[in-house]
């Protein structure tokens, strides 16, 4: 039940933040240009969120909700690990390059987190970047960020384009 209120509280803060941005543009009905101003849509929508979220916080607990909104304590640790790992991977992509960050993530997830065999972990870690390169870069010509590894790809570009 507490979680429900915390999330509703976060929504209150988010909507207030959006409203503070929306009021930079006119939010009223502007007769001159006909119709609502540029800030009207985001402002009033945020206001509705705020009101509804306040209601969610202060309404009495309903029986069917009470038992649902808990975290599985046992799984919290692994879950946070995964979230952090994803964040680290994304942070690494612009500097170390997608072809370093993604295999690192895969290896961590498969070998350390998932406790799979070396063969499986290593083969997926190696094969996925190759598949990604051929599918995205060689075929679809969508270049992924390479960061400092960029020079190593010059011969590959020369080969495939």
């Amino acid at each position, binding site marked *: 039940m507490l979680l429900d209120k915390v999330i509703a509280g976060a929504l209150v803060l988010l909507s207030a933040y959006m409203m503070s941005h929306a009021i930079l543009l006119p939010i009223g009905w502007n007769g001159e240009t006909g119709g609502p101003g540029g800030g009207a849509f985001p402002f009033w929508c945020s206001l509705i969120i705020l009101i509804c979220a306040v209601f969610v916080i202060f309404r009495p607990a309903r029986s069917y909700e009470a038992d649902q909104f808990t975290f599985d304590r046992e799984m919290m640790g692994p879950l946070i690990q995964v979230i952090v790992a994803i964040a680290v991977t994304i942070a690494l992509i612009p500097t170390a390059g997608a072809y370093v960050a993604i295999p690192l993530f895969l290896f961590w997830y498969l070998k350390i987190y998932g406790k799979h065999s070396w063969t499986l972990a290593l083969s997926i870690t190696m094969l996925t970047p190759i598949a990604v390169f051929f599918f995205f870069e060689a075929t679809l*010509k969508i270049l992924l960020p390479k960061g400092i590894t960029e020079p190593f790809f010059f*011969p590959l570009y020369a080969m495939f*384009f």
Partner: protein
Amino acid sequence: MYNKLTKKIAVAAISTAALLAGAAQAVAGDWKPQKPVELVIMAGQGGGADRIARLFQSIIQKENLSNMPILPVNKGGGSGAEALRYLKDKEGDAHVIMATLNSYYTTPLRTDIGVDIEEFTPLARMAMDTFVLWVNADSDIQTLDDYVAAVKAAGGSWKMGGTGTGQEDSLVTAMLEKEFGIQHTYVPFKGGGTVAKNLVGNHINATVNNPAEQMGFWQAGKVRPIVAFTPERLAVFPDVPTARELGHDIVYWMQRSFVAPKDMPADAVAYYTDMLEQLGATPEWQEYASGKALVADMLTGDALQNYFLNERSKHAEILASIE
């Protein structure tokens, strides 16, 4: 197919290994892109600016003007502000070029986005697009005088369609208003094609639009050009007078150019300028330009930079006078 692919992979693996081992790469005398070149488009997908940039890209590819592919990326957010900021962050990068339109100067003038276009490296101006005032072919308006009379009679409720406040056509609309002392209701749409469709569907009364956007409907006899905002009559519309010859000095161009980030290496600048000059000479481009009433006027280097700065101060004046 398969053999070729495996061979490619093998060769790739070997050469990567060679590179990793520290084998020096042969330094070629003249510069060539080493990786695919990003072509930033200052507009979203589907608009006139996007279409012309992609046309350039396909001609470059078809005629093999570049050894590496040119990959278009749309960064149309904030009237091109997104693209300008992106280019600013690419300082010194030799593999990014940008296709511009007039928001290249108007956007930094209208909102402070921390970009000074003087810092960018000019490559080539491919063409100047023209503007024409259009009405639905069913309307009675034949001349500019008819038009002004009709707008006056409507008393401010005359619906002028356009691509957004601050966009090129809205500037021409503002110039019209100033010149004739008339009032329009300016209705913004997403893209010139949508504007053209709304004109034919009679949802708006008139529009200032590039001929390229209206051509299909004009050929079908659905829309009528009233006046051209060019110094001389357009070859495709020999019967349409210019505003200037009717005694109203309204001339407005949309430039279609390529620029590069600040401090792009000189060899790279030379390479791209040369590539774009070749592009400008291709029959495909010449044909497209004449068919769509574009003035294919090539300008490069310092001359182009002067042109940009000139246009920027002109636009500063126009914007100051209407806002």
